């Protein structure tokens, strides 16, 4: 069986995206079951995570896999074992796939060069978070009526793009799916060479709505960014880079990878509004990650790979 690591969306084609999301739909509908029976999935989380860890674990167990979870506490990671030594150990113990979360960008790619088992990037530093972008595409396609409905839609990605692994996967993933993407952030929260993405850079959520955004994709503003070095105050940030009810006329949708800072990037009354896909994003995580695990381990063969 052919296995394949899953590190980023940068080289993923539109047809591959469609295939992954179709497979996820098959998992969600129950048409594919027990795909991972006799497989051993190792979750190696070098950084705290709630929704990603839980949804990978559910994705593996519901398809019949054995799951081994390593977290920073209670494993050799806390004894200072290196990333490479940890993943080589897991590989040697016979893992069929290693799901890796790590605080440093490039960790998943580094790990994959030292293992025979495929490595699935569950978020590496400010690098990539490809399964997040896939579940976002799944949730959005579902809300719009199908994968082909994504083409030509306008999505404004708002917030701390500089420090966001979510943005670095959502941008190429959404662009490849045919979505028109714009970026909304102060220059202090954008990479210095943001022009490399060749995307419009807008200066407020108001401007994004004026640009014709169908979706406002709000990024989380980390607490440590609120101290004044990169943004002056929560009040100014919320005013220009936060979404509130007045932005949601004409069917504009709101997405967020979680966890939400209510009153910062999203006003409290919008989080669970009907315009919000936040709960749908979380729900999509399980079937999408089942599909990724199945494709990576070779349990389901890819057509377009």
């Amino acid at each position, binding site marked *: 069986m052919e296995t394949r690591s899953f590190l980023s969306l940068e080289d993923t084609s539109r047809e591959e995206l469609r295939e992954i999301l179709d497979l996820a739909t098959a998992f969600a509908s129950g048409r594919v079951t027990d795909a991972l029976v006799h497989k051993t999935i190792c979750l190696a989380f070098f950084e705290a995570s709630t929704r990603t860890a839980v949804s990978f674990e559910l994705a593996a167990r519901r398809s019949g896999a054995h799951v081994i979870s390593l977290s920073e506490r209670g494993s050799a990671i806390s004894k200072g074992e290196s990333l490479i030594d940890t993943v080589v150990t897991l590989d040697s113990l016979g893992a069929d796939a290693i799901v890796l979360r790590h605080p440093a960008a490039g960790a998943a790619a580094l790990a994959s060069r030292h293992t025979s088992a495929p490595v699935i990037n569950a978020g590496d530093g400010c690098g990539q978070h490809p399964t997040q972008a896939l579940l976002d595409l799944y949730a959005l396609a579902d809300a719009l009526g199908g994968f082909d409905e994504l083409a030509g839609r306008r999505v404004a990605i708002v917030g701390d793009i500089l420090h966001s692994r979510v943005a670095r996967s959502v941008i190429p993933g959404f662009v490849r799916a045919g979505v028109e993407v714009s970026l909304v952030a*102060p*220059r*202090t929260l954008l990479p*210095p060479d943001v022009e490399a993405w060749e995307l419009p850079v807008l*200066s407020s959520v108001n401007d994004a709505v004026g640009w014709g955004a169908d979706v406002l994709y709000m990024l989380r503003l980390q607490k440590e960014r609120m*101290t*004044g*070095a*990169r*943004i*002056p*105050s929560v*009040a*100014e940030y919320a*005013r*220009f880079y936060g979404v509130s009810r007045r932005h949601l006329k004409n069917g504009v949708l709101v997405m967020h990878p979680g966890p939400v800072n209510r009153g910062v990037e999203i006003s409290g009354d919008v989080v669970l509004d009907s315009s919000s896909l936040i709960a749908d994003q979380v729900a999509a995580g399980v079937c999408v990650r089942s599909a990724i695990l199945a494709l990576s381990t070779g349990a389901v063969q890819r057509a377009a790979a």
Partner: protein
Amino acid sequence: MILEETVPTELVIRGAHVLDPSSGLDGVTDVRISSGMISEIGEGLRGTREIDADGLHLFPGFVDVHAHWRTPGREDEETIETGSAAAAAGGFTGVVMMPNTDPIVDRPVVVSGLVRRVERESRVRARVSAALHVGLAGERLTEMRLLKEAGAFCVSDDGLGTASAGVLRNGMLYARSAGLPVILHCEDHTLATGVVHDGVAASLAGLPGSPASAEDAATATALILAAETGAKVHITHVSTALSAALVGFFKDRADVTSDTTPHHLTLTDDLVSTLDGLYRVNPPLRPDDDRDGVEVALRDGVLDFVATDHAPHASEEKELPMEEAAPGFLGHETAFAALYTDLVLGGRLSLARLVETMSCAPGRWVGEGGTLRVGEPADLTLVDLSEEWAVDLGAMISRSSNSPYWGRTLTGRIVSTIVGGELVHDRTGAGFGVRA
């Protein structure tokens, strides 16, 4: 604004030598002002209200991007009313007010309050610079977008300089997003530990010196960051030859402009030997070779314009030993005359370049005034280039009297200053009434 209703809206200035490099005017002609705008330029204009300006020069109004009017907080030193009257007396029609007041101009409510007061109390067009960092402390960014909405024209950490390169870089990036220019006072405080320039004069006097490197290192850092961040940056009061050369290197590599002051162009650290706190200023007066380098840079267009750094201080803050005195000089009232006397009459700068650097270039920078064309606001300065006058500290229009030119006789005196068609300073004796 008080006289707005009672004064006729038309005025003809007859027979002045009109000089404006931005429009190419250089000769005797008449200028008609209607409803606050320049409406006609040509020979033989007549009007119900005329100023006979025979023998005088008419320039676009001077613009000073660096003024401390000490309001709010030190109204004993200067107010918007006295500061703007001093500016008008110096021929300035536009000014940028620096934020190092008490309270510091770092919150939207302070900006909006100042903007409202300026509308009522200022004789000239005064713009508000807000702080780049909260408390001018070089740590937390100010709410620049809200400050801009409240009416701030630019941001600056003037008077203190900025703590670290990393902090300054983020400040520039954020200012760029907010669409605000940044005015930078470049001094590295780990180097600028003295009270005068660290040179021969300081050594002989036994005064702690601040080396030129304090300015040069900070200027280099600011320029490099300006180039990298794409922010619109203005380096104020360049005082060394090396800093001027650095500005020149970055002129085509960054969105950067720069100014120097009348005092750095006309005075040197010879004055250190007086041991008189009056002559303390930041950056300090420099030796001859730096003064020469700054003059050449202004002449050659490397430095874009002149700004005064008008910094009033109460006498109890200046009549002190150098080490205890507050740094800063009055600037508005003497700027043109000092530069005309020393540089133009000294044969070192053309009158046209002086007008370019006091009116046209800073007017372009603030986006208003600085040009004498039909359809533009009538912001004008009428000057008698032959009048000699003694700088008398008792006769300053500013509320303070800390002018480094006291006791000197200067040539060239502002006769009238006109803002939006209204006389805001007038020594013609025409008796039209001055807006106050």
